Structure formats: C-alpha cells, structure tokens
C-alpha cells in the first residue's frame, strides 16, 4: 500500500490537513455537482433527452462552447503577446499596464457587460462607426466573443508571464551562438518552453468563458437560436419553475466542460512528459 503510505516529513499534520482538504473540496465542489446530477436523474432518460435536444438548447450550447473556444484561442495569441511585451520590454507606464491586466478579475462582470454594450451598441462610441461598415457587434455572437475575451484575458497573461520571466537569457545566447536567427530562437527555444503554461492559461480562459454570464447577457441581446447562451437558458428555465429542465441543461454543460478540461489536461500531461519533467 505505497499509495497511502505516510512519508516522513518535518512538518506535522499530514493526516489532518489531507483530511480537511478533501472534506473541503467535497463540500464546496463535489457536493453541489452530485446534487445536480441526482436532481436531473429524477427526470428520467426520455424527458431528459427531449429537454437537452430541443433546438434552442442545442443552439445555446453550441454558441456557449463555440464562442468560449474562439475567445480562448484569440486570448491564447493576444495574451501571449501582452505577457511577452510586459516581460521583454521596458516602457513608461509599464506597471500601470501590468495592473490593468488584472482589471477583468476585479471588475463585476455586469459592469463590464454594460460598458461593452455602451461601446458596441449601434449608437455607441465604436458601434456607430462599425454599423455603416456592416459590422454588427452588440446583440450578435461577435459581441459575446468580445465580452468573453475581456473576462478571460488575465488567465493567459498571468500564467504565461512568470514562465517567460524565468526563461534564462542564456538560452537565447546559446541559440544565437549556434547560429539561430531571431525567428528560429522564438519558434524553437522560447515558444516550446512556454507552451505548457500557455496551454494551462488557455484552458482556464476557456473554462472561465463557458460559464460567463454577467458580462455576456447585456451585449448578447439574447435572441433565441442566435445569441442566447446556455447559462441564460438555465436561468430562464428556473424562472419558469422548470427546475428539472434547468438541471438537465446544467448537467450537459458540466459533462461538456469536464470532457474539454480532461482533454486539455491529457494534452498538458503529454507535453510535460515530452519536456522530461515527469
């Protein structure tokens, strides 16, 4: 039973702290999830399937996961760029910009939603110029993607930043001495070293974006089959006292989120193995 074998440690309290940690995780995370699945099982398989395969529900799930994936992908690129600039260059106001990155963490999402709607609405600051160009942002999936990019940006920046900071300058010097040009150094030395962090950050950004509600509902316009996100379906079902229907949709969201996270974790495990860290 090496699995449970207690290792000697100078710090006491392994048993107590492990027990408490598991109890806490169970109470905060697993219990609600279990209740959710239990509740939805009251529905029975037939009605469950009927609820979740309704066109409005399917469309909303597609929208939620599609926009979240797109936002995570865009943040993967732009977040890396922001982290790169913050680590690599010195410029006036750098600390201010650095602090700005955390704003989406701190800002109530509803405030972000209202602010974004004000900007991108057809008569808003930017919206009024985009409208004549045929670009509708507010009340379309595009608007949702923008809101999701906003709320999930810090996840990528804050996971990639420390890894870039820790990257020794000597690695680049070594590569230069070996005759590599700048692009080769980036592509073959710097980028692969930050890839695991970038994937972690993007996964967190994606997870955050799928569940986002507050900032999205204002800018989305919530048009059924077009810009109605899955969390909103759940809310509207709850408002109609359709608790079982709401939990059914919630369970599907849970399953999808879980499988996506699982896939990303597998990918991470594979890259870190490749890096010889395990």
């Amino acid at each position, binding site marked *: 039973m090496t699995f449970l074998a207690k290792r000697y440690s100078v710090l006491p309290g392994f048993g107590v702290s492990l027990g408490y940690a598991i109890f806490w995780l169970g109470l905060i995370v697993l219990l609600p999830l279990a209740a959710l699945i239990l509740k939805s099982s009251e529905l029975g398989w037939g009605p469950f399937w009927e609820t979740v395969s309704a066109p409005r529900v399917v469309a909303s799930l597609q929208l939620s996961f599609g926009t979240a994936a797109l936002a995570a992908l865009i943040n993967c690129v732009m977040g890396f760029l922001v982290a790169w600039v913050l680590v690599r260059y010195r410029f006036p106001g750098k600390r201010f910009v650095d602090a700005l990155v955390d704003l989406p963490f701190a800002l109530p999402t509803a405030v972000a939603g209202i602010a974004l709607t004000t900007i991108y609405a057809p008569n808003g600051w930017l919206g009024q110029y985009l409208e004549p160009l045929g670009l509708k942002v507010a009340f379309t999936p595009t608007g949702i993607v923008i809101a999701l990019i906003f709320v999930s940006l810090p996840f990528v920046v804050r996971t990639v930043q420390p890894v870039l900071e820790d990257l020794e300058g*000597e*690695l680049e*010097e*070594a*590569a230069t001495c*070996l005759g590599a*040009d700048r692009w080769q150094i980036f592509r073959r030395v710097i980028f692969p*070293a930050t890839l695991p962090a970038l994937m972690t950050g993007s996964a967190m950004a994606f997870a955050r974006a799928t569940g986002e509600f507050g900032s999205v509902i204002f800018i989305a316009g919530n048009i059924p089959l077009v810009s109605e996100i899955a969390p909103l379906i759940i809310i509207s079902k709850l408002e109609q006292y359709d608790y079982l229907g709401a939990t059914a949709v919630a369970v599907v969201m849970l399953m999808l989120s879980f499988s996506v996270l699982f896939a990303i974790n597998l990918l991470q495990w594979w890259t870190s193995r490749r*890096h*010889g860290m395990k």
Partner: protein
Amino acid sequence: MSIEIRNIEKRFGNFTALDNVSLKVESGELLALLGPSGCGKTTLLRIIAGLEQPDAGQVLFSGADTTHTHVSERQVGFVFQHYALFRHMTVFDNVAFGLSVRPRKLRPSREEIRERVMKLLKMVQLDWLADAYPAQLSGGQRQRIALARSLAVEPSVLLLDEPFGALDAKVRKDLRRWLRDLHHQMHITSVFVTHDQEEALEVSDRVVVMDHGHIEQIGRPDDIYENPATPFVTRFLGDVNLFHGRVDGGHFTHGNFAHALDDGAQAASDSAVAYVRPHDLDISRLAGGALATGSIEHIHAVGPLVRIEVAPDSGDAIEVALSKDRYRELGLMLGDKVFVTPKKLSVFVGAQDYAI
C-alpha cells in the same frame, strides 16, 4: 584560428569592467582567463564571443576585424556555467540544434546530422543518453552535452565561461582532465574563464591573470607560479606569507633579520614586502639565514605535507609546509621556539597590501 584583442574598453555605468585590455590568443592554444569575481574576465570572454559590444577597441579573428560581426556569424562555440541546455529537447536534439537551424542549402541531410551528433555524443561518452531530457542528467553530464552541442557546428573558437563552476569538486577534477585531453585531440583555439587558480594552472597552455579590468600577467602556468609579476598575482595563485621590511644594499631586512637577495639590483626602499609560499619556508633551530622567529602554535599533520603555524612576537602567524621526513627529522613539538628560513622569496618594493 588566432584571436587578437586590441585596446578593449568596456564600462557598465560608472563601473569599468575592462580598461584598455590587449591580448593575443595563438591558434590552437588553450588559454585561461583567471581572476577574482568582478575582474572583467567574463566580460572579456563575452566580447570575444560577440555577446557584448566593447565601448572601444577591436577584436580580430585570424587578423580580420570581427568587432561588429554578429554572434551567429562568428562561428564561436560558447559553453555557459549553467549549461543553458534547451529543456524541452532531448539530448540528441540539443546537440543537433546548431546544424538543424542552418539555412536549407547549408544544412546537412538528416542522416548526416544523425551521424555527426552520435559521433559527438560518443566523444563525450554519453551516446547512451541520446533520448534523455536535460532534467534527467547530472550536472557533469549536462556540461558535457553543452560542450558537444557547441562543438557540433564545428566552431573555429571555443569559449567556456566558468564551465565547471557549478559542479562539485570530484566531477570538476575529472572534467578538467577530460577537457585538456579533448583539446589535445581537437586543437581548437579555446579560451576559458575561471576563478579557480588550480584549474587554470592545471588545464591551460597559458594563463592570463586579471584584476580590476586589466591584465596583471600573462604566461605559462609554471612560469606564472614561479615568477609572479605582481603582489596581486602572488597572492591570488595560492597561500602566501607576508613579511614587511626594507630593501637596501641587496638585502631584505625584516625586524632583526636580513636576507640576501639574488637580484642585487633591487632599488632601495623603506617599504618592501617579501612574499613566501608555505612550502618555500623551512624551519630551523638556528638563526642563520632566518627571516623570523616564533613559537610553534599549531601542527596539522594530515596529508602529504605537515602544516605548521609559527606565531612570531608580532604580526600574523606564519604558515610553513614541511615534508613528513623533514618534520620528523626536526622533531618539532608545540610551543618550540624556532626560526623560519625562506628557500625562495619574491620581494615587491613600495607595494601596498592587496586585499583579495
């Protein structure tokens, strides 16, 4: 390929790292840059590599000015103290890196790269680790891989920045010897930086001793050790006893003792310092030819030499290293009153005390 350094100056803010340094490295030689930390030796190495630009002066490779040639075009192999291996690549890919980043036209074929990398890995005796990642290697193995990686591009100059600085004593000694043998096989012009005088004296063909941004002495290891040019070099190369005194009429006078100097032409001076290494001192019961007297305070008899500390009436304790035979012959005991006789001494006139 020979390297010539002409009047190099380098400043970092107010700090002068290199002050008008000139040096010639002969083709195929293994040269050590030796000095305490902050003496500018690493800066000089980085300027030779092109990783740092000098404020003034020139670097010439085989007579051609390369001062403004980019690092990637200088064909230098550079080995870092902390290895700087690419963590996400296998040992094989690390060594192959230099070849694989070449433009398509100049890049060897896959098979050729494979062959060359395996040959280098065999040379550093690590071919069995080709598929391992750097994280799985020991420090000594990593440094050998780093060396193989820098040699893969067939550099015309090999530069090593404290290559064994992060390794423990035993591995250091093995790698030192191994580097010297490797250099004998390849005859590539090599410069390595170290603060360890033993390492510099053992490995290199010539040693450059540096301090405070300038060169103190250049010479063969035995020459530098036997005839140090300055008090700094004397003190830096090993333990040494100091005797303050005067020089006049071909004699060095320390307290009540006078010692005839071989070099009678020494200018007379009221402040002179004689430097004597512990193994250049002998102990005697008689006053003839002595430089100091005192009582034996400590005897350390472990190892091939017996280390004896003699406490003079005034001043620091004098350290003497005697052979076991001589020690037995004298029958020394703690507290004995003895005389200390120099077999060889270096006298520097008007020299201030150098702190290292």
